[in-house]
């Protein structure tokens, strides 16, 4: 009996034919595809004036506005609104009205009153009012997740009338900065009360923002539609729909942008900026950001417990090389841990070290280390800037006799090691930091305050004088009358951090994004006070 009859052969032939025809159809249809986009590829239809196509790397950790404190901020900031917005540096006023139209602080700084915008509704139709503000803040405090700690000074939220709330504080703080924070400050509908976190994480939202979440495919795509009932004004050249593609690789985002498949790429490889700038269809935007890079010294371990050693190493850091190579020139050397331009380092009057290897070597010898020593440095594998500049630190420290063993770790592993048993911790910890609110106090408070268990003070540095100074400065900044005195205290605190050198302050990085010239980013679309966020209402079609 013939096992291989003619039938299998006919089937195989048919399969081959179908595959070949499908491939051919695909290639032919690609060749016939529209080429009216402004880019070089012929494989995409023309850009739409109604749909804005974005590529982000940002995935969603949670949709719960009380708990959200991660990369999903890029979406949350367009779905929800705070009471006020912090304006970009250089603006006439530090804050703009959002869901509050005006606000004032009592003379003693212990209460803040917000007058709310009327005629606003949440996406579910529930009216926005003082009760909603109280509900949002109370719930965020109660859950104590995400950025809830920002509201710690608020003792109670009082509903004075339907459109007025007064927040009573345990101690004076600049509550306007907290109310304008990039996370944890959003107002959401009381009608969501009783819904579990699973309900939120299934892809629900209920803010007052100009955009509504239409669909959510985790790790893949998010679609937002315009909220036609938003209290703001819509114009004809604003988009009606936002489609976000999650694209993890910068190279892929760049290619999709060049092909006209997307309008905006949120992740740009810095070494590709020149190539993108030379593309006549693409605009590259380099904007100020509050991203700063620093390298903690483990002050609990010899020889880094010696101040002279830390100061010497601060002179050994190749600051300009790091900026040139690590940040491709798109950064400036830091002046302390607060980026220049952010309160209280608005004027950049904080001292800084310069690269001086001869001085560094001299200081090390004077400190009792003429022959140097060995240090372990850890940095985040996912961060290409750290990947680029870590070897430069190794090389520069070698010139002063310090051997650096560089260890590249995934962020979670790097952080776990730093928080783990003291004997296993690193000597040098490279970190990218951005503040949670438009206040450099967050930088100093989070990274240099005493901690019972290490979290962000990864220099393990404790100084009671600094502590007192910082607390005084913060409390003085609570009311306008105290700002000048607060600035002086902050100047002293920042100078102390530079002098005591618990960390080397490397650079303040610019944010870089790229977009097709068919879209325009309006003023305020990118605001350093809202890291990674693009405000979609301020993006218009040309």
């Amino acid at each position, binding site marked *: 009996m*013939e*096992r*291989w009859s003619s039938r299998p052969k006919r089937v*195989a032939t048919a*399969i*081959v034919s179908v*595959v070949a025809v499908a*491939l051919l*159809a*695909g*290639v032919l249809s*690609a060749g016939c595809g529209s080429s009216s986009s402004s880019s*070089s*590829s*012929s*494989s*995409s*239809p023309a*850009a*739409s004036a109604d*749909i804005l196509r974005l590529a982000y790397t940002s*995935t*969603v*950790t*949670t949709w719960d506005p009380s708990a959200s*404190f*991660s*990369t999903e901020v890029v979406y949350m900031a367009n779905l929800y609104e705070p009471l006020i917005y912090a304006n970009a540096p250089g603006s006439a006023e530090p804050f703009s009205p959002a869901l509050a139209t005006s606000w004032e602080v009592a003379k003693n700084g212990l209460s803040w009153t917000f007058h709310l915008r009327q005629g606003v509704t949440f996406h579910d139709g529930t009216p926005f009012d003082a009760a909603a503000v109280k509900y949002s803040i109370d719930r965020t405090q109660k859950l*104590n*997740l*995400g*950025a809830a*700690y920002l509201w710690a000074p608020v003792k109670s939220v009082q509903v004075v009338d339907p459109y007025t709330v007064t927040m009573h504080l345990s101690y004076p703080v600049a509550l306007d900065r907290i109310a304008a924070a990039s996370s944890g400050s959003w107002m959401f509908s009381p009608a969501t009360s009783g819904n579990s*976190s699973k309900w939120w*994480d299934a892809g629900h939202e209920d803010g007052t923002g100009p955009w509504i979440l239409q669909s959510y*495919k*985790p*790790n*893949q795509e998010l679609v937002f539609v315009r909220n036609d009932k938003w209290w703001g004004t819509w114009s004809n050249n604003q988009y009606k729909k936002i*489609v976000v*593609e*999650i694209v993890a*690789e910068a*190279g*892929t985002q760049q*290619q*999709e942008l*060049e092909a006209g*498949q*997307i309008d905006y790429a949120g992740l740009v490889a810095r070494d590709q900026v020149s190539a993108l700038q030379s593309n006549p269809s693409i605009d590259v935007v380099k904007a100020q950001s509050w991203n700063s890079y620093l390298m903690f010294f483990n002050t609990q371990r010899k020889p880094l417990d010696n101040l002279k050693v830390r100061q010497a190493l601060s002179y050994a850091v190749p600051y300009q090389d790091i900026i040139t190579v690590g940040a491709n020139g798109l950064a400036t050397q830091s002046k302390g841990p607060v980026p220049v331009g952010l309160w209280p380092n608005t004027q950049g009057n904080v001292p800084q070290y310069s690269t001086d290897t001869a001085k560094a070597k001299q200081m090390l010898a004077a400190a009792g280390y003429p022959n140097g020593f060995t240090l372990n440095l850890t940095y985040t594998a*996912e961060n290409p800037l750290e990947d680029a500049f870590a070897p430069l630190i190794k090389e520069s420290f070698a010139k002063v006799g310090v051997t650096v063993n560089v260890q590249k770790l*995934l962020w*979670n*592993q790097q*952080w*776990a*090691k730093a928080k783990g048993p003291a004997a296993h911790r690193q000597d040098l910890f490279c970190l990218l930091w951005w503040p*949670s609110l438009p206040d450099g106090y967050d930088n100093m408070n989070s990274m240099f305050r005493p901690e019972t*268990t290490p*979290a962000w003070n990864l220099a393990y540095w404790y100084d009671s004088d600094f502590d007192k100074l910082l607390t005084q400065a913060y409390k003085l900044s609570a009311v306008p009358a105290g700002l000048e005195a607060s600035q002086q205290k902050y100047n002293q605190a920042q100078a102390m951090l530079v002098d005591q050198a618990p960390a080397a302050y490397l650079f303040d990085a610019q944010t870089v994004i790229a977009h097709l010239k068919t879209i325009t980013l309006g003023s305020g679309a990118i605001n350093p006070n809202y890291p990674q966020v693009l405000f979609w209402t301020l993006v218009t079609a040309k």
Partner: protein
Amino acid sequence: MTIWSYIVRRISLAVLVLLGVATITFLMVRLSPSDPAAVYVGANARPAQIAQARQLLGLDRPLYVQYGIYMKNLVKGDWGESLRTKRPVLQDIMHFLPMSLELIISALIVATILGIILGVATAHRKGKWIDHVMRIFSTGGVSIPAFWLALMLQIVFFRMLHLLPVAGPSDILVAQAHPITSVTGMPVIDALVTGNWPAFTDSVRHLILPMLCLAAYPMGVIMRMTRSSMLEAMGNDYIRMARAMGVPPRTLLYKDALKNAFGPVLTVIGLTFAYSLTGTFFVELIFAWPGLGQYATTSILSTDYPAIMGVTIMVATAYVLVNLAVDLAQALLDPRIALS
């Protein structure tokens, strides 16, 4: 041994294998330095929140207790919850798997057809130029790293020739104008069965490059295995006899030689299918293909251990099932093979 008792025996052994895989993976992931509670809470987490999450997730319990709970739940079908997506891991896997299957199955169909045809052709023309050229292709397909090949395909077909899209399963505007109704979760199949021709064409175009990238390795392996099996088969006396009796070359090759040479080829096809499940990782990352590979890569980079374990168990299960299917297919095709 009957076929059913063979299947039962193999599945029983498979369960033991999977338990072993789950145990080893659990230990490797949990003992590596990372903080799952911090992953759960997200970046910028405060110590109190991490401590709260640690308690919520049961991470404050001894490791052997956590292992026991995990294995008990695994047996009940609860694969845990992803620390990143906050969804059940099994739900995530079922969501992303169809996209990967579409890629893998299409790649394997192409690899198998081309691999067998070229393998037979090179065996028939041993030592000729086609044999030498195909050797280069097959060696290249097997040895070129998938991520490099992916980038090269993007450069050639997208950047230089402007023929095919660079990444993603579909064009955003086409997808919005012609949304695909999900039936299987595979865009090409769903568009085809629902008659959505614009979306079908678009999905096929987006599938071509990642499919070619993924097909390179299995095609090389299948081609070489087919060639060597065919050479062995064609050296047999019955082939010489058939040739001497005037049997046409095509019949000789495809009916008489190939059917006997097909056994090892079938085994290799099965193994490359299972290999492709992990081979998609880099391919999906570079082509922004929202499949299991991208989910797994993101989980590994963020040390999302329940998701890492879930994907590992899924891949191990696929290996086991594919191997079983291959063995059964071989027994069905060749009565000389006894199941034991």
